[in-house]
C-alpha cells in the first residue's frame, strides 16, 4: 500500500453524510504507538492517581517526553485513541459524552491505578466517526451513558501523551472481532474503521493526533515479581529472548518505514507473542494514516511485567513538509 497525504484524501468519495469543511479540511498530524501499562502512571505519581510509588520504568516513561513536547508544539485539536481495554462485542463504540468525570480503578491492578479522570470529549468528531463507520458498513455505537467508567488503557495512553489534559479527546473501543473471526477479517474491520476515522477527521476540519494504545509482545509474568514493591526494577525483565527478538523485528520494520512488510508479519507476531496489536489499535491507526511507508521514530522500549512496549511516532506533518516520498 502506498502512503497518501491527507490532503489527497479529500478527493476520496465520502459516504458518511454531513458537511465537508471545504475551507479548512482536517488532517492527521501524526500517530503514536502509545502503550498503556498502568504501571507507567503509577510510577509518575500524578495527582490524579491515588497510589504512590518510588518511580520505575523510566525508560518508557521518559520516551513519552518526546510525545508531550511534540504535542505541545503541534497543538492538535484532538487526540483520538483506540484502546484494547474497552472491549466491545457488538460493533465499534465511540465515546460521545461531552465531559466525563469519575474514578477509574483498574480491575486487574487496583493497587496501582485508581485514577480520577476528567475528560473533555470532542463529541462532534465522535459523532462523525460513528457516522462514517456506519457508512462503510461497520456496526458502530455512540457511548452516551454519563455514568461510564473510562478504561485504564484509554486513560494511561492519554495521560502519558498529554498529562495536562488540555486537548479534547475521542476514544474508540476495541471490537473483539479478532477473537470471533480469523485475523484477516478482524484486521479488515480495523482497516475500515481507520478509513472512517480519517474521513471524519477530514470532514470535521480537525487537526488530529492518533494513538494506538497497544503493547507489542504480551506474554507476561504470571505472578507479580515483588508484590510489596511493584516498581522493583531489579525484578523487571523481558519475558523471553524470543519475545524480545520479535519486538525488535517489528520495531525495525517500523523504523525502516516498511509498513506493508509490517502488516504482512502481524498475524505471525500475534500468534507467537500474544501481541496486543491483535486488538486492532495499530492497524486502525496505520489505516487512518493511509498506511504510510515512512520511517517511524523510535523513542523508547521497555518491559512491564515482561510485556514488550515501545513508544513510536509516525510524524505525518513533518513528512508532508518534507515533500513526502
Amino acid at each position, binding site marked *: 500500500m502506498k502512503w497518501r497525504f491527507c490532503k489527497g484524501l479529500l478527493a476520496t468519495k465520502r459516504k458518511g453524510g454531513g458537511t465537508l469543511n471545504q475551507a479548512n479540511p482536517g488532517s492527521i498530524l501524526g500517530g503514536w504507538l502509545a502503550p498503556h501499562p498502568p504501571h507507567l502512571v503509577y510510577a509518575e505519581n500524578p495527582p490524579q492517581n491515588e497510589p504512590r510509588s518510588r518511580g520505575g520504568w523510566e525508560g518508557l516513561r521518559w520516551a513519552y517526553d518526546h510525545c508531550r513536547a511534540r504535542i505541545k508544539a503541534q497543538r492538535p485539536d484532538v487526540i483520538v485513541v483506540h484502546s484494547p481495554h474497552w472491549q*466491545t462485542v457488538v460493533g465499534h463504540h465511540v465515546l460521545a459524552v461531552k465531559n466525563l468525570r469519575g474514578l477509574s*480503578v483498574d*480491575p486487574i491492578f*487496583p493497587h496501582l491505578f485508581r485514577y480520577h479522570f476528567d475528560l473533555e470529549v470532542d463529541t462532534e468528531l465522535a459523532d462523525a466517526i460513528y457516522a462514517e463507520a456506519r457508512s462503510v458498513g461497520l456496526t458502530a455505537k455512540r457511548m452516551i451513558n454519563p455514568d*461510564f467508567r473510562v478504561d485504564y488503557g484509554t486513560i494511561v495512553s492519554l495521560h502519558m501523551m498529554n498529562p495536562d489534559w488540555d486537548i479534547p479527546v475521542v476514544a474508540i473501543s476495541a471490537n473483539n472481532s479478532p477473537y470471533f473471526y480469523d485475523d484477516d477479517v478482524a484486521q479488515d474491520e480495523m482497516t475500515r474503521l481507520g478509513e472512517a476515522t480519517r474521513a471524519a477527521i477530514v470532514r470535521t476540519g480537525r487537526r488530529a493526533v492518533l494513538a494506538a494504545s497497544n503493547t507489542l509482545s504480551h506474554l507476561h509474568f*504470571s505472578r507479580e515479581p515483588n508484590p510489596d514493591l511493584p516498581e522493583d526494577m531489579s525484578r523487571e525483565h523481558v519475558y523471553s529472548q524470543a519475545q524480545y527478538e520479535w519486538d525488535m523485528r517489528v520495531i525495525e520494520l517500523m523504523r525502516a518505514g516498511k509498513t506493508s512488510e509490517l502488516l504482512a508479519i502481524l498475524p505471525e507476531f500475534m500468534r507467537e507473542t500474544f501481541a496486543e496489536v491483535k486488538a486492532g489499535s495499530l492497524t486502525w491507526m496505520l489505516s487512518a494514516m493511509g498506511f504510510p511507508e515512512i520511517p517511524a521514530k523510535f523513542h523508547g522500549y521497555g518491559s512491564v511485567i515482561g510485556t514488550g512496549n515501545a513508544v513510536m511516532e509516525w510524524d505525518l506533518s513533518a513528512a508532508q513538509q518534507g515533500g513526502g516520498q
Partner: protein
Amino acid sequence: MSFAYACLVPGLPHILAPGNNAAYRALAEAMVRAGDDMQERGIRRLFYFSTQWLSVLGHLVQARPQVAGRHVDENWHDLPEVGSLPFDFKVDVPLAEATYAALDQANFQSRLVNYEGFPVDTGTIVADRLLNRHGFAANMLSCCVYSDYGDTERLMRTVTKVIAADDVPTALVVVSGLSGRYFTKVIDPQEDHISDPGDDVWNRRILALMEQGQLIELEQVVADYARECKVDMGFKALAVLKGAGIFDHPAQRQLMTQAYGPIYGTGAAVVTLGP
C-alpha cells in the same frame, strides 16, 4: 460445613429487563426462585466466582465491607433500563481475609481488594440483583485468566476448606455463560437464539451430563466443548464446581437445569444443586 448450595447462572444484563423475550424472563425467574430457595434453606452468604471478574497475576479477593456504586457495562451501556446498574454488596470481611490467607498458604498469589470505586463486574451485579433479594452477604473471588482447569479445581478446594471452617451456610454462585458465540451485529431481542445450532447441541449435552453427575465424561469432552463453542472462559465453571465438591456425592446431591436459553447468541443456563 462445605458449600450448602451451589448454582451456575448467567451474567449478562439483558435478563434484568427481559421485556417480551421469554427466554430472558425464564432465566431471570429461575434465578429469583433460586434465591428464594436459598433463603428457605437457611443460606446466609453467597460466594461469587464470576468469569467476568478477570485477573492476570493471581487471584483477587474482594474485602471491602460495603461495595456500592453504579456500574456501566463497557459493551451494554445502552441497554434500555439497565444501562446503569446500581449495586450494593455487603462483604463478609473475615471470610475474605481467611480466603486470602488460605490461598497464600496454598501458594496461590492473591491480593485483597478494598478500594472505593472498584469496578465490580457486570456478571456478579446481574446475578446478585436476581439471586439476592434476601440480604445475603456476598463474597467475591476473581477469575484468573491464566489459571488452568487443574489450578482452578485446586483453588476451589482451598476455598471450600475455608468455607467449611465456619458455620455460616454458604452458597457457591458460579457466574458463567455456556457457548460464547455472540451475535456481532445489533439484533432484535425477540429474534435472539443460540447463534450456532451446533452450540445448542453441545450446550444441551453438557447440561445433561451435569444433571447426571457424569463428571468423568464431562472432563473428557470439556476441552472440545470449550474450543468448538467458544465457551465462556473455557468452561472453567466446571473446574470451580468440581473443586467445590459439588460432584462429590451424586447420590445425595444433583445438579438440575432450571432454565436454558440464548442471550445475544450465547448459551445461558440456570443450574442449581438439588434436591
